[in-house]
């Protein structure tokens, strides 16, 4: 790196020494490429980093070089790296990235002025990004809050306000950042958090009040029905805006009936919102804005022509019905039609190209929350997941090559499968090929501090198993209770008991655990944290291995996938007799999404393996991210077979516990594993923590 300049080489070494070698690789390659393109600029950049190196972390450095690499060499010659670095240090990474992108797209010829924030637009953009509240900063609280309100039926999704959300009734979409109101003496975070809370609660009220259930059994169909109805009008976006104006009133009344404590929060938001309403662009928007303000504040914050007043009064009087508990979405529809007719009589204008901001919510949030417009052709969630899968597979192809432990022989075993239609087994129906999992050369480093914490916690748990056993034939001390009781018994004419000692010994856990991981292709889907499910699972398993190693529990790890009943593959990532070490880590690292998951067969196989162990308690942790699914193995047939396999395991003393990494908590889980014998992990980014807690709990 930086050939020809010893002073800079030394400086570079000092910078990289701050990080572990593997982590510094994250930015070193980009730095090298940048040096090859623009050596002079790179020297300057490194000098700047050297001054700030104690404040920079790896992610910021990686972003720094990635952003600079996106610029042409001629532009690099002109810019000062200091403001670029300052932006990274002062803005959250995501916001900094947006600010860079905006500058690159709009101000490529004047980038130095843009980065120095001497451009008015640049300063305003920067200011907008720097204030407000990021949803990610409060992600856990918001998710728990939403789950508490909805029962976990909907996943929160955070999207930038300049993107559009594909409509999915299972999602509750929020802007990833709100900065609706200016700072109010250090309380802006409170207000913005309240706004997030309002968005979740308000949207939940819409769903509960049946906004998206018009003439439909489910939200998706109801949303489509509404869209179709909007399209029957000459100006679909206008009727949509007016409908939401009234429907928000109904949903808000529902919200306040359900959560009376929200009144104070609502008033606080309203008092802020009234000063920040958007300026109407024409008479029609002015009329609608006046209607909105009359409905929420009982008056408008601007003068309303006298000729409108009667019409506004009539509409507001009719809207009173919306606040009644008996109000339905049909009432909002009727009022929207009446208002639309009024607008048609009074104003002439071209059809709207987008819905108006007739909501108390920030405009961008309203758009994100709105149902789809016909013709938007929203992608199905499965499609999105598949896109994620493809992207991931490309990574895999380009990634480190995997090797296979050829020393271990592969076996094929046949297992029965339960056919619930005929209520009998299909004998030797499935062929399972067992083998050892492939390995990668390199292994990602875990956070050493966290590893140590996990090991300490579980070593402590292991120590808790040391107990003083009483009433023993031999021991290191006299059991005073037994001795006194024995003496009393002897006085009563009974013989002195023999078990009079106590012994400090380890309370034998006498437990063996097998972890069975579903490696199907659906594990390629991305979690909110940006990792794929399988990546999250393998990191969680690494931590679990550290814990079990500290606990000295006997354990094995298997993964499975396959393609059809004759090709069920089950891989041993760690056998019971193997010691946890580099090989296991390399096999875990090589875990990739494969194909289908024929759960029943894999469960039967691991149950069989566990029966060879001597431990009194046998635990099988089945980690899966969804339903069993394979060729001719779907729906109820697959569920019934998996359930049967779990029952068979119980019948031979193997206790199966399900860890279901599916945010939508499917109803079948309870039936498959039984009450209290499963856990649904909705926030996959917490999987490691949940898995460790669960293991501690089930084996205590």
């Amino acid at each position, binding site marked *: 790196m930086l050939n020809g300049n010893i002073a800079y080489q030394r400086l570079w070494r000092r910078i990289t020494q701050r990080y572990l070698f593997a982590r510094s690789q994250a930015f070193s390659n980009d730095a090298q490429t940048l040096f090859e393109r623009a050596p002079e600029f790179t020297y300057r950049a490194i000098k700047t980093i050297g001054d700030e190196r104690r404040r920079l972390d790896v992610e910021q450095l990686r972003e720094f070089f990635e952003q600079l690499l996106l610029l042409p060499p001629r532009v690099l010659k002109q810019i000062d790296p200091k403001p670029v670095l300052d932006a990274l240090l002062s803005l959250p990474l995501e916001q900094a990235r947006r600010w860079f992108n905006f500058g690159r797209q709009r101000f490529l010829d004047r980038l130095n002025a843009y980065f120095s924030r001497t451009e008015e637009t640049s300063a305003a953009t920067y200011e907008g990004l720097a204030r407000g509240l990021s949803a990610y900063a409060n992600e856990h609280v918001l998710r728990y*809050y939403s789950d508490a309100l909805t029962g976990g039926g909907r996943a929160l999704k955070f999207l930038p306000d300049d993107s559009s959300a594909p409509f999915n009734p299972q999602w509750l979409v929020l802007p990833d950042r709100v900065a609706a109101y200016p700072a109010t003496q250090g309380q802006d975070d409170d207000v913005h958090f309240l706004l997030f809370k309002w968005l979740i609660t308000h949207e939940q009220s819409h769903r509960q009040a049946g906004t998206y259930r018009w003439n439909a059994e489910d939200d998706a169909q109801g949303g489509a029905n509404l869209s179709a109805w909007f399209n029957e009008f000459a100006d679909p976006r206008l009727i949509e805006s007016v409908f939401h104006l009234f429907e928000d009133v109904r949903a808000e009344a529902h919200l306040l009936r359900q959560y009376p404590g929200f*009144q104070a929060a609502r008033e606080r938001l309203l008092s802020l919102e009234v000063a920040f309403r958007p300026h109407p662009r024409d008479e029609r928007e002015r009329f609608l804005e006046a209607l909105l303000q009359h409905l929420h504040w009982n008056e408008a914050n601007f003068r309303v022509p006298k000729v409108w007043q009667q019409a506004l009064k009539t509409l507001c009087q009719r809207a009173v019905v919306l606040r009644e508990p008996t109000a339905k979405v049909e009432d909002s529809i009727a009022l929207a039609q009446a208002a639309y007719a009024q607008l048609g009589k009074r104003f002439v204008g071209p059809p709207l190209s987008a819905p108006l901001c007739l909501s108390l919510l920030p405009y961008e949030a309203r758009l994100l929350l709105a149902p789809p417009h016909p013709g938007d052709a929203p992608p199905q969630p499965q499609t999105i997941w598949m896109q994620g899968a493809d992207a991931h597979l490309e990574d895999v192809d380009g990634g480190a090559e995997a090797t296979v432990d050829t020393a271990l022989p592969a076996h094929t075993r046949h297992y029965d499968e339960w056919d619930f239609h005929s209520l009998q087994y299909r004998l030797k129906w499935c062929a399972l090929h067992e083998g050892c999992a492939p390995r990668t050369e390199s292994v990602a480093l875990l956070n050493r501090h966290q590893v140590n914490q996990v090991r300490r916690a579980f070593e402590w748990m292991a120590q808790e198993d040391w107990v003083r056993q009483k009433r023993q034939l031999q021991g290191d001390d006299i059991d005073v209770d037994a001795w006194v009781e024995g003496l009393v018994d002897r006085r009563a004419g009974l013989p002195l008991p023999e078990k009079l000692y106590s012994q400090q010994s380890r309370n034998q856990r006498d437990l063996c655990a097998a972890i069975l991981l579903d490696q199907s292709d659906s594990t390629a889907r991305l979690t909110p944290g940006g990792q794929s499910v399988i990546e999250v699972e393998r990191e969680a398993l690494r931590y679990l291995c550290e814990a079990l190693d500290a606990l000295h529990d006997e354990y094995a790890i298997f993964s499975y996938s396959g393609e059809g009943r004759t090709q069920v593959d089950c891989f041993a990532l760690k056998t019971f007799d193997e010691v946890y070490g580099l090989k296991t880590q390399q096999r875990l690292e090589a875990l990739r999404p494969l194909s289908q998951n024929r759960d029943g067969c894999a469960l039967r196989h691991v149950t069989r393996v566990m029966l060879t162990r001597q431990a009194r308690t046998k635990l099988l942790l089945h980690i899966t991210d969804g339903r069993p699914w394979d060729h001719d193995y779907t729906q109820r047939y697959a569920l019934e077979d998996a359930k049967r396999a779990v029952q068979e395991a119980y019948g031979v003393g193997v206790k199966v516990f399900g860890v279901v990494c599916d945010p939508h908590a499917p109803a079948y889980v309870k039936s498959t594993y039984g009450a209290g014998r499963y856990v649904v992990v909705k926030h996959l980014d917490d999987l490691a923590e949940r898995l460790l807690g669960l293991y501690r709990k089930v084996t205590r």
Partner: protein
Amino acid sequence: MASKVTATTTKTKQRAPYYLPLGNEVALFEAAYHAKLPVLLKGPTGCGKTRFVEYMSWELGRPLITVACNEDLTASDLVGRYLIIDDDTVWQDGPLTQGVRQGAITYLDEIVEARNDTVVLIHPLTDHRRILPVDKLGQQLQASNGFCLVLSYNPGYQSVRKELKPSTRQRFISIEFGFPSPEKEAQIMSHEARVDYDIARKLVYLGGKIRNLTGQGLEDELSTRLLIYAGQLMQADIAPLVACEAALIQPLSDDRDVQRSLLEVANNYFG
């Protein structure tokens, strides 16, 4: 010698303990009692199992002996032992023996906490023989007519090392308890905590939202007992949000994010 058994004996009370039936559990228990069948009560912590047994003891006019099981509980703790009193050795009945002799309803609470060798002791009492072997006395006690053995068990305990063995479970008729419907839980709340029905209802709705997080940040389900505590604090003029935090949120989780989210939900009702 320190006793490791916590047993309480309750004589039949003059006034009926408050219990609001949730289904057919009263009729089932009565039928089991008259047929001399042992009863297993299944349900989460704080859902009213113990109160139900108290109520049935009053209803049937039998004394109630309650034993809180733990892993140090020995057979002697349940059956009895000799004690030295005034230079003499005197046999002292354990709670199980007392129950068998008196014809009491004998309630072993959280039976999974007891060691397996202790649990086996109850087996002869649970079949047609209804006997209790007392080895130290060389006797086999025949259970009196009014004797009824009741066990409680929390299936959501989620520990593979502490489960009730099938050979034990199959000796009992089982009555499953869940949390009451919101209307009934509000009735229970307003009676037990002596709060307005409106406050009771808000607390119950809040409880429902908190229970949505069971298994999702909360390990255990919120009990009716904790809801009653919250109501009692409010009744003692503690501010509602403070009461909710002390009685509903802090006992359930140490996770700051979970605590904050639950406080926000409580704010929706009592803000």
